[in-house]
Protein backbone atom coordinates (compact mmCIF):
# COMPACT_ATOMS: atom_id res chain seq x y z
CA UNK A 1 0.00 0.00 0.00
CA UNK A 2 1.32 3.42 -0.98
CA UNK A 3 1.36 6.31 1.49
CA UNK A 4 0.84 9.68 -0.17
CA UNK A 5 1.51 13.11 1.30
CA UNK A 6 -0.95 15.58 -0.21
CA UNK A 7 -1.32 19.16 1.01
CA UNK A 8 0.59 18.21 4.12
CA UNK A 9 -1.65 15.26 5.05
CA UNK A 10 -0.86 11.59 4.63
CA UNK A 11 -3.19 9.18 2.88
CA UNK A 12 -3.02 5.40 2.52
CA UNK A 13 -4.00 4.72 -1.08
CA UNK A 14 -6.29 1.74 -1.63
CA UNK A 15 -5.76 1.70 -5.42
CA UNK A 16 -3.04 -0.45 -6.93
CA UNK A 17 0.40 1.17 -7.23
CA UNK A 18 0.16 1.65 -10.99
CA UNK A 19 -2.90 3.91 -10.62
CA UNK A 20 -2.44 7.51 -11.78
CA UNK A 21 -2.30 10.07 -8.99
CA UNK A 22 -5.23 11.97 -10.51
CA UNK A 23 -7.64 9.08 -9.89
CA UNK A 24 -6.55 8.73 -6.28
CA UNK A 25 -6.90 12.47 -5.67
CA UNK A 26 -10.39 12.61 -7.14
CA UNK A 27 -11.87 9.20 -6.28
CA UNK A 28 -10.26 8.35 -2.96
CA UNK A 29 -9.42 11.73 -1.47
CA UNK A 30 -12.30 13.68 -3.02
CA UNK A 31 -9.91 16.46 -4.02
CA UNK A 32 -11.62 17.53 -7.23
CA UNK A 33 -9.51 20.59 -8.09
CA UNK A 34 -7.35 18.69 -10.57
CA UNK A 35 -9.40 17.80 -13.66
CA UNK A 36 -9.28 14.91 -16.12
CA UNK A 37 -8.78 16.47 -19.55
CA UNK A 38 -6.91 14.42 -22.14
CA UNK A 39 -5.38 11.70 -19.98
CA UNK A 40 -2.21 11.98 -22.09
CA UNK A 41 -0.22 14.70 -20.40
CA UNK A 42 -0.99 17.06 -23.26
CA UNK A 43 -3.52 19.58 -21.89
CA UNK A 44 -2.51 20.42 -18.32
CA UNK A 45 -5.94 20.43 -16.65
CA UNK A 46 -4.69 17.82 -14.14
CA UNK A 47 -1.61 19.84 -13.13
CA UNK A 48 -0.50 19.58 -9.49
CA UNK A 49 2.81 20.39 -7.81
CA UNK A 50 5.25 17.62 -6.99
CA UNK A 51 7.67 19.19 -4.51
CA UNK A 52 7.61 22.62 -6.20
CA UNK A 53 7.34 21.55 -9.83
CA UNK A 54 4.16 21.41 -11.91
CA UNK A 55 3.45 17.88 -13.20
CA UNK A 56 0.57 16.10 -14.96
CA UNK A 57 -1.16 14.03 -12.28
CA UNK A 58 -2.83 11.84 -14.96
CA UNK A 59 0.62 10.51 -15.92
CA UNK A 60 2.09 9.72 -12.52
CA UNK A 61 1.69 6.24 -11.03
CA UNK A 62 1.37 6.56 -7.26
CA UNK A 63 4.14 3.97 -6.88
CA UNK A 64 6.75 6.70 -7.44
CA UNK A 65 5.33 9.10 -4.86
CA UNK A 66 6.23 7.47 -1.56
CA UNK A 67 7.88 10.10 0.64
CA UNK A 68 7.33 13.00 -1.77
CA UNK A 69 5.14 16.08 -1.33
CA UNK A 70 2.12 16.72 -3.56
CA UNK A 71 0.23 20.02 -3.55
CA UNK A 72 -3.15 20.43 -5.24
CA UNK A 73 -5.34 23.48 -5.80
CA UNK A 74 -6.97 22.82 -2.43
CA UNK A 75 -3.56 23.17 -0.79
CA UNK A 76 -3.06 26.78 -1.91
CA UNK A 77 -5.89 28.37 0.07
CA UNK A 78 -9.58 28.29 0.97
CA UNK A 79 -12.64 30.07 -0.38
CA UNK A 80 -12.39 32.53 2.48
CA UNK A 81 -8.66 32.87 2.28
CA UNK A 82 -7.51 32.17 -1.28
CA UNK A 83 -3.79 31.88 -1.97
CA UNK A 84 -1.94 34.64 -3.83
CA UNK A 85 -2.38 33.10 -7.28
CA UNK A 86 -5.98 32.07 -6.60
CA UNK A 87 -6.75 35.64 -5.50
CA UNK A 88 -5.12 37.09 -8.62
CA UNK A 89 -7.23 34.79 -10.85
CA UNK A 90 -10.38 35.89 -8.99
CA UNK A 91 -9.43 39.56 -9.21
CA UNK A 92 -8.83 39.29 -12.96
CA UNK A 93 -11.93 37.10 -13.40
CA UNK A 94 -9.61 34.85 -15.37
CA UNK A 95 -12.01 32.02 -16.14
CA UNK A 96 -14.69 31.30 -18.66
CA UNK A 97 -15.78 27.66 -18.45
CA UNK A 98 -13.10 27.22 -15.80
CA UNK A 99 -12.09 23.64 -16.62
CA UNK A 100 -8.44 24.49 -17.27
CA UNK A 101 -8.11 27.03 -14.49
CA UNK A 102 -7.09 24.75 -11.62
CA UNK A 103 -4.22 23.53 -13.78
CA UNK A 104 -3.36 27.07 -14.86
CA UNK A 105 -3.20 28.20 -11.23
CA UNK A 106 -0.96 25.29 -10.27
CA UNK A 107 1.41 25.92 -13.17
CA UNK A 108 1.56 29.65 -12.25
CA UNK A 109 2.26 28.75 -8.64
CA UNK A 110 5.15 26.56 -9.85
CA UNK A 111 6.56 29.49 -11.82
CA UNK A 112 6.43 31.93 -8.92
CA UNK A 113 8.04 29.46 -6.54
CA UNK A 114 10.95 29.19 -8.92
CA UNK A 115 11.12 32.74 -10.26
CA UNK A 116 9.51 35.52 -8.23
CA UNK A 117 10.13 38.14 -10.94
CA UNK A 118 9.21 36.57 -14.28
CA UNK A 119 9.18 38.67 -17.44
CA UNK A 120 6.10 38.57 -19.68
CA UNK A 121 8.05 36.39 -22.12
CA UNK A 122 8.97 33.98 -19.32
CA UNK A 123 5.33 33.77 -18.22
CA UNK A 124 4.16 32.97 -21.77
CA UNK A 125 6.90 30.40 -22.23
CA UNK A 126 6.23 28.73 -18.88
CA UNK A 127 2.45 28.52 -19.42
CA UNK A 128 2.82 26.85 -22.86
CA UNK A 129 2.00 23.26 -21.76
CA UNK A 130 -1.44 24.20 -20.39
CA UNK A 131 -4.27 24.64 -22.87
CA UNK A 132 -7.43 26.76 -22.64
CA UNK A 133 -10.16 26.22 -25.22
CA UNK A 134 -12.31 29.25 -24.32
CA UNK A 135 -9.71 31.84 -25.28
CA UNK A 136 -9.20 33.26 -21.80
CA UNK A 137 -5.45 33.53 -22.37
CA UNK A 138 -5.20 37.31 -22.00
CA UNK A 139 -6.84 37.28 -18.60
CA UNK A 140 -4.84 34.27 -17.48
CA UNK A 141 -1.61 36.07 -18.39
CA UNK A 142 -2.82 39.20 -16.58
CA UNK A 143 -3.63 37.12 -13.51
CA UNK A 144 -0.15 35.58 -13.44
CA UNK A 145 1.33 39.05 -13.86
CA UNK A 146 -0.84 40.33 -11.00
CA UNK A 147 0.20 37.46 -8.72
CA UNK A 148 3.86 38.08 -9.55
CA UNK A 149 3.53 41.80 -8.85
CA UNK A 150 1.74 41.10 -5.57
CA UNK A 151 4.61 38.79 -4.70
CA UNK A 152 7.29 41.34 -5.49
CA UNK A 153 5.34 44.25 -3.98
CA UNK A 154 5.39 46.06 -7.34
Amino acid sequence: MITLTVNGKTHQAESDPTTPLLYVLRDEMKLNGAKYGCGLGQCGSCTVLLEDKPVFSCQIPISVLEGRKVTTLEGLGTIDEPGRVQKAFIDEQAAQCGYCIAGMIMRSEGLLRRNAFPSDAEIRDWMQPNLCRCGTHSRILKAVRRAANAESGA
Partner: protein
Amino acid sequence: MARFGRIIVGLVAIVIVVGIGFWAWASEPAIDPVSRPAAGQFSKASIAKGAELAALGNCQACHTRPNGKAYAGGYPVETPFGTIYGSNITPDPDTGIGKWSEAAFRRSMHEGLRRDGGHLYPAFPYTHFTKVSDADIKDIYAFLMTRPAVHNTVPSPDLPFPLDIRMVMAGWNLLFFHEGRYQPDGSQNAAWNHGAYIAEGLGHCAACHVPMNMFGAEKTDKGYAGGNAAGWHAPALDKSSPSPVGWTKDELAGYLRGDMTPHHGVAAGPMADVTKVLAEVPHADVEALSTYILSKGATKPADARKAAIADAGKKSFQVTTAQKANFKGSAKDGEAIFAGACASCHFDGGSQPFYRPVDLSLSSAVNAPNATNLVQIITHGVKPAAGGSGPIMPGFGDVLTDDQTASLVGYVRKHFTGKPAWDHVDKAISTSKETAGQ
Protein backbone atom coordinates in the same frame (compact mmCIF):
# COMPACT_ATOMS: atom_id res chain seq x y z
CA MET B 1 74.31 36.29 -17.62
CA ALA B 2 74.92 38.25 -20.81
CA ARG B 3 74.95 34.99 -22.68
CA PHE B 4 71.65 33.99 -21.13
CA GLY B 5 70.22 37.36 -22.16
CA ARG B 6 71.32 36.76 -25.74
CA ILE B 7 69.54 33.41 -25.78
CA ILE B 8 66.33 35.07 -24.60
CA VAL B 9 66.64 37.76 -27.25
CA GLY B 10 67.28 35.09 -29.85
CA LEU B 11 64.24 33.07 -28.79
CA VAL B 12 62.00 36.14 -28.80
CA ALA B 13 63.25 36.98 -32.28
CA ILE B 14 62.46 33.47 -33.50
CA VAL B 15 58.96 33.63 -32.02
CA ILE B 16 58.37 36.99 -33.70
CA VAL B 17 59.64 35.81 -37.07
CA VAL B 18 57.58 32.59 -36.91
CA GLY B 19 54.57 34.59 -35.75
CA ILE B 20 54.88 37.05 -38.63
CA GLY B 21 55.39 34.16 -41.04
CA PHE B 22 52.25 32.39 -39.74
CA TRP B 23 50.31 35.63 -39.90
CA ALA B 24 51.42 36.24 -43.48
CA TRP B 25 50.57 32.66 -44.44
CA ALA B 26 47.24 32.51 -42.60
CA SER B 27 45.94 35.94 -43.56
CA GLU B 28 43.24 36.02 -46.17
CA PRO B 29 42.16 39.10 -48.09
CA ALA B 30 38.86 40.88 -47.51
CA ILE B 31 36.37 40.92 -50.37
CA ASP B 32 35.03 44.42 -51.09
CA PRO B 33 31.63 45.23 -49.60
CA VAL B 34 28.69 45.74 -51.94
CA SER B 35 25.33 47.45 -51.47
CA ARG B 36 22.60 44.95 -50.70
CA PRO B 37 21.47 43.55 -54.08
CA ALA B 38 17.94 44.55 -55.10
CA ALA B 39 15.44 41.71 -54.79
CA GLY B 40 14.52 42.14 -58.46
CA GLN B 41 17.93 40.97 -59.58
CA PHE B 42 17.16 37.37 -58.50
CA SER B 43 14.77 35.17 -60.48
CA LYS B 44 11.80 33.59 -58.70
CA ALA B 45 13.03 30.16 -59.77
CA SER B 46 16.44 30.80 -58.24
CA ILE B 47 14.94 31.98 -54.92
CA ALA B 48 12.62 28.95 -54.78
CA LYS B 49 15.49 26.54 -55.47
CA GLY B 50 17.54 28.35 -52.84
CA ALA B 51 14.78 27.80 -50.30
CA GLU B 52 14.88 24.04 -50.95
CA LEU B 53 18.65 23.98 -50.72
CA ALA B 54 18.63 25.97 -47.46
CA ALA B 55 16.17 23.39 -46.12
CA LEU B 56 18.47 20.53 -47.17
CA GLY B 57 21.29 22.28 -45.32
CA ASN B 58 18.99 22.90 -42.30
CA CYS B 59 20.59 26.35 -42.18
CA GLN B 60 17.94 27.83 -39.97
CA ALA B 61 18.54 25.35 -37.14
CA CYS B 62 21.85 26.96 -36.18
CA HIS B 63 21.18 30.42 -37.61
CA THR B 64 17.98 31.08 -35.63
CA ARG B 65 17.81 31.39 -31.88
CA PRO B 66 14.83 29.90 -30.01
CA ASN B 67 11.78 32.15 -30.58
CA GLY B 68 14.02 34.39 -32.71
CA LYS B 69 13.55 35.70 -36.25
CA ALA B 70 14.50 33.27 -39.00
CA TYR B 71 18.18 33.34 -40.01
CA ALA B 72 18.96 36.25 -37.67
CA GLY B 73 21.49 34.18 -35.74
CA GLY B 74 22.23 33.81 -32.04
CA TYR B 75 21.63 30.07 -31.62
CA PRO B 76 24.18 28.74 -29.15
CA VAL B 77 26.08 25.82 -30.69
CA GLU B 78 27.67 23.91 -27.83
CA THR B 79 31.01 22.41 -28.81
CA PRO B 80 33.50 20.49 -26.66
CA PHE B 81 35.63 23.68 -26.73
CA GLY B 82 33.03 26.31 -25.89
CA THR B 83 29.93 27.97 -27.25
CA ILE B 84 29.75 29.44 -30.74
CA TYR B 85 26.72 31.46 -31.79
CA GLY B 86 25.17 30.95 -35.22
CA SER B 87 25.72 34.13 -37.23
CA ASN B 88 23.09 36.49 -38.63
CA ILE B 89 22.70 35.52 -42.29
CA THR B 90 19.85 37.89 -43.10
CA PRO B 91 20.78 40.70 -45.52
CA ASP B 92 21.13 43.31 -42.78
CA PRO B 93 24.15 45.42 -43.86
CA ASP B 94 25.56 45.98 -40.37
CA THR B 95 24.92 42.78 -38.43
CA GLY B 96 24.11 40.31 -41.26
CA ILE B 97 25.50 39.55 -44.70
CA GLY B 98 23.93 42.52 -46.54
CA LYS B 99 27.32 43.76 -47.74
CA TRP B 100 28.46 40.36 -48.95
CA SER B 101 28.79 39.84 -52.70
CA GLU B 102 27.96 36.45 -54.16
CA ALA B 103 31.72 35.84 -54.43
CA ALA B 104 32.14 36.54 -50.70
CA PHE B 105 29.26 34.21 -49.85
CA ARG B 106 30.66 31.50 -52.11
CA ARG B 107 34.07 31.82 -50.49
CA SER B 108 32.54 31.45 -47.02
CA MET B 109 30.83 28.22 -48.08
CA HIS B 110 33.81 26.80 -49.96
CA GLU B 111 36.69 28.01 -47.77
CA GLY B 112 35.25 28.93 -44.37
CA LEU B 113 36.18 32.63 -44.55
CA ARG B 114 34.17 35.71 -43.69
CA ARG B 115 33.88 38.58 -46.15
CA ASP B 116 36.58 40.44 -44.22
CA GLY B 117 38.93 37.48 -44.57
CA GLY B 118 38.53 36.28 -40.96
CA HIS B 119 38.39 32.52 -40.42
CA LEU B 120 35.08 30.89 -39.55
CA TYR B 121 34.98 28.08 -37.02
CA PRO B 122 34.18 24.61 -38.37
CA ALA B 123 31.03 24.48 -36.22
CA PHE B 124 29.90 26.09 -39.47
CA PRO B 125 30.35 23.00 -41.64
CA TYR B 126 32.31 24.53 -44.53
CA THR B 127 34.20 21.24 -44.42
CA HIS B 128 31.04 19.89 -46.11
CA PHE B 129 29.75 22.98 -47.89
CA THR B 130 32.98 23.08 -49.88
CA LYS B 131 31.46 20.24 -51.93
CA VAL B 132 28.43 22.31 -52.98
CA SER B 133 28.31 23.47 -56.62
CA ASP B 134 28.62 27.14 -57.57
CA ALA B 135 25.14 26.97 -59.13
CA ASP B 136 23.55 25.80 -55.88
CA ILE B 137 25.40 28.42 -53.86
CA LYS B 138 24.12 31.08 -56.26
CA ASP B 139 20.54 29.98 -55.51
CA ILE B 140 21.07 29.89 -51.73
CA TYR B 141 22.52 33.40 -52.00
CA ALA B 142 19.41 34.51 -53.92
CA PHE B 143 17.19 33.02 -51.21
CA LEU B 144 19.07 34.54 -48.26
CA MET B 145 19.41 37.97 -49.86
CA THR B 146 15.65 38.15 -50.35
CA ARG B 147 14.82 37.36 -46.68
CA PRO B 148 13.77 40.23 -44.40
CA ALA B 149 16.85 42.01 -43.05
CA VAL B 150 16.99 41.69 -39.26
CA HIS B 151 19.28 43.90 -37.20
CA ASN B 152 20.68 41.52 -34.60
CA THR B 153 24.20 41.50 -33.22
CA VAL B 154 25.25 37.98 -32.33
CA PRO B 155 27.43 37.33 -29.26
CA SER B 156 31.11 36.59 -29.85
CA PRO B 157 32.21 32.97 -29.53
CA ASP B 158 32.95 31.91 -26.00
CA LEU B 159 36.19 30.01 -26.57
CA PRO B 160 39.39 29.68 -24.53
CA PHE B 161 42.81 30.90 -25.69
CA PRO B 162 44.21 30.19 -28.26
CA LEU B 163 41.02 29.08 -30.01
CA ASP B 164 39.59 32.58 -29.60
CA ILE B 165 42.13 33.70 -32.22
CA ARG B 166 40.37 32.96 -35.48
CA MET B 167 43.60 32.70 -37.42
CA VAL B 168 44.44 29.55 -35.50
CA MET B 169 41.81 27.88 -37.69
CA ALA B 170 44.23 28.20 -40.62
CA GLY B 171 46.33 25.56 -38.89
CA TRP B 172 43.24 23.41 -38.23
CA ASN B 173 42.30 23.70 -41.89
CA LEU B 174 45.79 22.56 -42.93
CA LEU B 175 45.30 19.39 -40.89
CA PHE B 176 41.64 18.58 -41.42
CA PHE B 177 40.08 20.59 -44.25
CA HIS B 178 40.02 19.36 -47.81
CA GLU B 179 38.67 22.00 -50.13
CA GLY B 180 36.95 20.93 -53.31
CA ARG B 181 33.61 20.33 -55.04
CA TYR B 182 31.85 16.95 -54.99
CA GLN B 183 33.26 14.52 -57.53
CA PRO B 184 30.73 11.94 -58.78
CA ASP B 185 31.63 8.27 -58.35
CA GLY B 186 31.43 6.72 -61.83
CA SER B 187 30.81 3.25 -60.41
CA GLN B 188 27.52 4.37 -58.79
CA ASN B 189 24.21 5.40 -60.34
CA ALA B 190 22.77 8.92 -60.55
CA ALA B 191 20.51 8.57 -57.47
CA TRP B 192 23.43 7.40 -55.32
CA ASN B 193 25.60 10.26 -56.52
CA HIS B 194 22.84 12.79 -55.95
CA GLY B 195 22.35 11.39 -52.43
CA ALA B 196 26.07 11.52 -51.75
CA TYR B 197 26.20 15.11 -52.99
CA ILE B 198 23.44 16.06 -50.53
CA ALA B 199 24.66 13.98 -47.56
CA GLU B 200 28.33 14.93 -47.81
CA GLY B 201 27.64 18.51 -48.88
CA LEU B 202 24.72 20.65 -47.75
CA GLY B 203 23.17 17.92 -45.58
CA HIS B 204 26.41 17.60 -43.52
CA CYS B 205 25.06 14.36 -41.97
CA ALA B 206 28.56 13.44 -40.85
CA ALA B 207 28.78 16.49 -38.57
CA CYS B 208 26.67 14.53 -36.08
CA HIS B 209 26.78 10.89 -37.25
CA VAL B 210 30.57 10.51 -37.50
CA PRO B 211 32.71 10.35 -34.35
CA MET B 212 35.01 13.34 -33.70
CA ASN B 213 38.68 13.39 -32.81
CA MET B 214 40.13 15.50 -29.99
CA PHE B 215 40.38 18.51 -32.31
CA GLY B 216 36.68 18.43 -33.16
CA ALA B 217 37.34 17.09 -36.65
CA GLU B 218 35.41 14.13 -38.04
CA LYS B 219 37.22 10.80 -37.88
CA THR B 220 36.55 10.17 -41.55
CA ASP B 221 38.24 6.76 -41.41
CA LYS B 222 35.52 5.61 -38.99
CA GLY B 223 32.72 6.29 -41.46
CA TYR B 224 29.23 6.81 -40.10
CA ALA B 225 29.89 5.01 -36.81
CA GLY B 226 27.74 7.41 -34.74
CA GLY B 227 28.47 10.62 -32.84
CA ASN B 228 26.83 13.33 -30.78
CA ALA B 229 24.39 16.16 -31.39
CA ALA B 230 23.16 18.74 -28.88
CA GLY B 231 23.10 16.35 -25.92
CA TRP B 232 21.77 13.42 -27.96
CA HIS B 233 23.50 10.38 -29.41
CA ALA B 234 23.50 10.42 -33.21
CA PRO B 235 23.22 6.70 -34.04
CA ALA B 236 25.53 4.87 -36.40
CA LEU B 237 24.31 4.82 -40.01
CA ASP B 238 26.66 2.06 -41.13
CA LYS B 239 26.49 -1.67 -40.42
CA SER B 240 26.86 -0.94 -36.69
CA SER B 241 23.39 0.71 -36.74
CA PRO B 242 21.66 -0.16 -33.45
CA SER B 243 18.35 -1.02 -35.16
CA PRO B 244 17.73 -4.79 -34.80
CA VAL B 245 15.57 -4.86 -37.95
CA GLY B 246 17.78 -2.64 -40.07
CA TRP B 247 16.34 -0.20 -42.57
CA THR B 248 14.71 -0.45 -45.96
CA LYS B 249 14.86 2.40 -48.44
CA ASP B 250 11.15 3.16 -48.05
CA GLU B 251 11.40 3.17 -44.26
CA LEU B 252 14.38 5.50 -44.28
CA ALA B 253 12.85 7.89 -46.80
CA GLY B 254 9.62 7.99 -44.77
CA TYR B 255 11.50 8.49 -41.51
CA LEU B 256 13.54 11.32 -43.01
CA ARG B 257 10.33 13.04 -44.05
CA GLY B 258 9.01 12.82 -40.49
CA ASP B 259 6.73 9.79 -40.85
CA MET B 260 6.02 7.42 -37.99
CA THR B 261 7.57 4.16 -39.21
CA PRO B 262 6.31 0.97 -37.51
CA HIS B 263 9.73 -0.53 -36.75
CA HIS B 264 11.65 2.68 -36.12
CA GLY B 265 9.22 5.19 -34.68
CA VAL B 266 9.66 8.87 -35.33
CA ALA B 267 12.69 11.13 -35.20
CA ALA B 268 13.28 12.82 -31.84
CA GLY B 269 15.75 15.36 -30.49
CA PRO B 270 17.72 17.41 -33.01
CA MET B 271 16.82 14.94 -35.77
CA ALA B 272 13.16 15.99 -35.45
CA ASP B 273 14.14 19.43 -36.75
CA VAL B 274 15.98 17.82 -39.64
CA THR B 275 12.97 15.73 -40.64
CA LYS B 276 10.75 18.79 -40.44
CA VAL B 277 12.76 20.56 -43.11
CA LEU B 278 13.25 17.41 -45.20
CA ALA B 279 9.46 17.13 -45.39
CA GLU B 280 9.55 20.34 -47.44
CA VAL B 281 12.10 19.35 -50.08
CA PRO B 282 11.37 17.32 -53.25
CA HIS B 283 10.79 13.62 -52.55
CA ALA B 284 13.44 12.72 -55.11
CA ASP B 285 16.10 14.40 -52.95
CA VAL B 286 15.09 12.39 -49.87
CA GLU B 287 14.91 9.15 -51.90
CA ALA B 288 18.42 9.80 -53.21
CA LEU B 289 19.66 10.56 -49.70
CA SER B 290 18.19 7.25 -48.50
CA THR B 291 19.83 5.34 -51.35
CA TYR B 292 23.22 6.77 -50.45
CA ILE B 293 22.93 6.38 -46.67
CA LEU B 294 21.73 2.77 -46.95
CA SER B 295 24.77 1.94 -49.05
CA LYS B 296 26.72 2.42 -45.79
CA GLY B 297 25.27 -0.84 -44.49
CA ALA B 298 22.36 -0.25 -42.06
CA THR B 299 20.25 -2.86 -43.88
CA LYS B 300 19.48 -6.42 -42.73
CA PRO B 301 18.68 -9.52 -44.77
CA ALA B 302 14.95 -10.38 -44.96
CA ASP B 303 15.21 -13.41 -42.64
CA ALA B 304 17.13 -11.47 -39.98
CA ARG B 305 14.45 -8.76 -40.14
CA LYS B 306 11.71 -11.29 -39.70
CA ALA B 307 13.49 -12.91 -36.76
CA ALA B 308 14.03 -9.57 -35.03
CA ILE B 309 10.35 -8.67 -35.36
CA ALA B 310 9.25 -12.08 -34.05
CA ASP B 311 11.67 -11.81 -31.14
CA ALA B 312 10.35 -8.32 -30.29
CA GLY B 313 6.83 -9.73 -30.13
CA LYS B 314 7.93 -12.25 -27.53
CA LYS B 315 9.50 -9.54 -25.36
CA SER B 316 6.56 -7.16 -25.43
CA PHE B 317 5.35 -6.12 -22.01
CA GLN B 318 2.45 -8.19 -20.72
CA VAL B 319 0.80 -7.75 -17.37
CA THR B 320 -2.65 -8.72 -16.12
CA THR B 321 -4.82 -6.68 -13.80
CA ALA B 322 -4.23 -9.25 -11.09
CA GLN B 323 -0.46 -8.89 -11.45
CA LYS B 324 -0.78 -5.11 -11.34
CA ALA B 325 -2.37 -5.28 -7.91
CA ASN B 326 0.56 -7.33 -6.67
CA PHE B 327 3.28 -4.87 -7.65
CA LYS B 328 4.91 -3.90 -4.41
CA GLY B 329 5.22 -0.43 -5.82
CA SER B 330 8.71 0.07 -4.52
CA ALA B 331 9.94 3.35 -5.93
CA LYS B 332 13.09 1.51 -6.94
CA ASP B 333 11.34 -1.19 -8.91
CA GLY B 334 11.81 -0.43 -12.61
CA GLU B 335 9.13 -2.91 -13.65
CA ALA B 336 6.56 -1.33 -11.33
CA ILE B 337 7.41 2.13 -12.64
CA PHE B 338 7.08 0.84 -16.21
CA ALA B 339 3.72 -0.77 -15.43
CA GLY B 340 2.41 2.54 -14.05
CA ALA B 341 4.07 5.24 -16.11
CA CYS B 342 4.77 3.57 -19.48
CA ALA B 343 2.60 0.53 -20.07
CA SER B 344 -0.61 2.43 -20.77
CA CYS B 345 0.89 3.15 -24.22
CA HIS B 346 3.92 0.87 -24.49
CA PHE B 347 2.38 -2.55 -24.49
CA ASP B 348 0.01 -4.42 -26.67
CA GLY B 349 -3.43 -3.89 -25.24
CA GLY B 350 -2.38 -0.76 -23.39
CA SER B 351 -5.23 1.56 -22.60
CA GLN B 352 -4.17 4.45 -24.82
CA PRO B 353 -2.96 3.25 -28.18
CA PHE B 354 -3.70 6.46 -30.10
CA TYR B 355 -0.32 6.15 -31.64
CA ARG B 356 0.95 2.64 -31.85
CA PRO B 357 4.42 3.26 -30.37
CA VAL B 358 7.40 1.44 -31.79
CA ASP B 359 8.05 -1.87 -30.07
CA LEU B 360 10.72 -1.05 -27.50
CA SER B 361 12.69 -4.17 -28.46
CA LEU B 362 13.17 -2.61 -31.90
CA SER B 363 13.89 0.92 -30.72
CA SER B 364 17.29 2.31 -31.67
CA ALA B 365 17.34 4.29 -28.42
CA VAL B 366 16.91 1.13 -26.30
CA ASN B 367 19.40 -0.84 -28.39
CA ALA B 368 21.93 2.02 -28.56
CA PRO B 369 25.51 1.74 -27.26
CA ASN B 370 24.73 4.28 -24.51
CA ALA B 371 21.76 5.45 -22.42
CA THR B 372 21.73 9.02 -23.75
CA ASN B 373 18.71 8.96 -26.03
CA LEU B 374 16.49 6.78 -23.85
CA VAL B 375 17.19 9.07 -20.91
CA GLN B 376 16.51 12.18 -23.02
CA ILE B 377 13.18 10.75 -24.17
CA ILE B 378 12.11 9.71 -20.66
CA THR B 379 13.13 13.10 -19.26
CA HIS B 380 11.78 15.41 -21.95
CA GLY B 381 9.26 13.28 -23.83
CA VAL B 382 8.63 13.39 -27.56
CA LYS B 383 6.84 16.20 -29.28
CA PRO B 384 6.55 17.35 -32.85
CA ALA B 385 8.76 20.20 -34.03
CA ALA B 386 7.15 23.62 -33.45
CA GLY B 387 4.14 24.03 -35.68
CA GLY B 388 4.27 20.39 -36.80
CA SER B 389 2.13 17.37 -35.96
CA GLY B 390 3.10 13.85 -34.98
CA PRO B 391 3.45 11.40 -32.12
CA ILE B 392 3.68 12.68 -28.58
CA MET B 393 4.96 11.40 -25.29
CA PRO B 394 4.96 13.41 -22.07
CA GLY B 395 8.31 13.89 -20.34
CA PHE B 396 8.90 12.42 -16.87
CA GLY B 397 11.88 14.57 -15.85
CA ASP B 398 9.98 16.32 -13.05
CA VAL B 399 8.07 13.18 -12.05
CA LEU B 400 10.74 10.55 -11.53
CA THR B 401 13.66 10.99 -9.17
CA ASP B 402 17.11 10.24 -10.57
CA ASP B 403 17.08 6.86 -8.81
CA GLN B 404 13.67 6.01 -10.23
CA THR B 405 14.76 7.02 -13.74
CA ALA B 406 17.87 4.86 -13.41
CA SER B 407 15.78 1.86 -12.29
CA LEU B 408 13.37 2.36 -15.18
CA VAL B 409 16.20 2.69 -17.71
CA GLY B 410 17.84 -0.45 -16.36
CA TYR B 411 14.60 -2.38 -16.56
CA VAL B 412 13.76 -1.26 -20.11
CA ARG B 413 17.25 -2.08 -21.40
CA LYS B 414 17.29 -5.54 -19.81
CA HIS B 415 13.71 -6.59 -20.49
CA PHE B 416 13.40 -5.39 -24.08
CA THR B 417 16.88 -6.12 -25.44
CA GLY B 418 18.59 -8.58 -23.10
CA LYS B 419 21.78 -6.61 -23.81
CA PRO B 420 24.31 -5.69 -21.10
CA ALA B 421 23.40 -2.79 -18.82
CA TRP B 422 24.75 0.61 -19.84
CA ASP B 423 27.55 2.40 -18.00
CA HIS B 424 27.21 6.02 -16.84
CA VAL B 425 23.39 6.05 -16.66
CA ASP B 426 23.56 8.45 -13.68
CA LYS B 427 25.64 10.91 -15.69
CA ALA B 428 23.24 10.71 -18.63
CA ILE B 429 20.34 11.48 -16.27
CA SER B 430 21.96 14.47 -14.58
CA THR B 431 23.08 15.88 -17.96
CA SER B 432 19.64 15.42 -19.47
CA LYS B 433 17.90 17.10 -16.56
CA GLU B 434 20.19 20.11 -16.87
CA THR B 435 19.30 20.68 -20.50
CA ALA B 436 16.03 21.91 -21.90
CA GLY B 437 13.95 19.48 -23.91
CA GLN B 438 13.80 19.57 -27.69
